[in-house]
């Protein structure tokens, strides 16, 4: 039987779990570890990168037939850096508090491997709608992991979520500061990746 062309919906859903950019493909690690000190910061960083990923995917897909193959990478980089500059200035203007926390990681979205990777592997070969869905799916997967990391680190390190008290006051008096420090971030992503591996291993055995 001939295999069907992957449906449009699968472009959207595959990025969320099956091809999650961080936990499965292991790319885009820098912002995942650096900006997830709280749920708000993780979510903010995820949304900023999502904006760039979706917009650049759509634009690159729209111009893909005009771009000569030999200079495609520099052209992709220019398109991506345009959107990075837009979000950089928008955040400076409307979210100055968040921008101060994220700092250099906002302009560094331009070298996030997920974005150039999707441009090269997907948007330069597919139509606008498909590229939009692919960008959206990968963005959801990326933002989700950042949010989970941020929420867990804030919960353990501060006893709060989004600044609201979430654990009893005796914990908040002496929280596990380790979670907020750089080693805590490495440790947490190691545990998350091990859980993903464990699920994959036990899932494989059942079949």
């Amino acid at each position, binding site marked *: 039987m001939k295999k069907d062309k992957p449906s449009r919906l699968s472009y959207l859903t595959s990025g969320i779990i099956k091809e999650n950019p961080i936990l499965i493909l*292991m790319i885009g*690690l820098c912002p995942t570890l650096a900006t997830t000190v709280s749920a708000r910061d993780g979510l903010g960083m995820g949304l900023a990168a999502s904006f760039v990923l979706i917009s650049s995917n759509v634009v690159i897909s729209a111009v893909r037939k005009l771009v000569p193959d030999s200079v495609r990478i520099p052209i992709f980089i*220019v398109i991506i850096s345009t959107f990075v500059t837009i979000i950089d200035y928008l955040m400076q203007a409307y979210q100055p508090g968040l921008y101060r926390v994220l700092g250099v990681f906002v*302009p560094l979205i331009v*070298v996030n491997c997920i974005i150039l990777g999707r441009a090269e592997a997907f948007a330069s070969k597919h139509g606008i709608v498909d590229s939009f869905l692919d960008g959206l799916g990968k963005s959801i997967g990326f933002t989700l992991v950042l949010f989970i990391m941020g929420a867990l680190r804030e919960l353990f390190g501060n006893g709060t979520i989004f600044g609201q008290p979430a654990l009893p006051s005796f914990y908040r008096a002496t929280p596990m500061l380790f979670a907020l420090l750089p*080693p*805590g971030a490495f440790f947490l992503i*190691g545990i998350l990746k091990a859980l993903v591996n464990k699920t994959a291993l036990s899932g494989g055995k059942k079949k």
Partner: protein
Amino acid sequence: MNPGKIFLAAFLVNNIILMRFIGLCPFFGVSTSVNTSIGMSAAVLFVMLLAAWVSWILYHAILLPLGLVFLRTAVFILVIATLVQFVEMFLKRYVRHLYSAMGIYLPLITTNCAILAVTFFNIDYKFNILQGTVFALGTALGFALAIILFSAIRERLEDAPISPAFKGYPIAFIGAALVSLAFMGFTALFGIS
């Protein structure tokens, strides 16, 4: 700030990988053996210094006088990409032994966020060109220190009995957490924050 403090801050206290989380892709990607780590570190040192100079000069001589500061991100990343290509061609033609030592790592450097981050930090911290050079040097050596130390640990982990779920990346992350914990000991060294 005096150059000695800038160097120590970039080298140990605010280590680019373990404290700032910049340049993690090569850190986990090429740290599987000590030899590749040394090659990568040499390439990073070389390109980081060049990129710091070129971007600093471009920013202060062209972008700032013409009021084009908003083009910073686009200009810097393109300059680094071009510079890497140029260095690769130059080494291939004139300095063969250096090319054979670090040639294969050069293309990877374009997407190494550590290089781009240093050019941004040099502008954000308002460094002059001497301070910028010292900062780039300290950062590159800090990168080398972290990646070489870590690759030695990873070589030993290869043969260690580890539960299957933790094999590969997870145990590498846990190892990085412990190395990072050790580097926390440098916090506030000589009053540098």
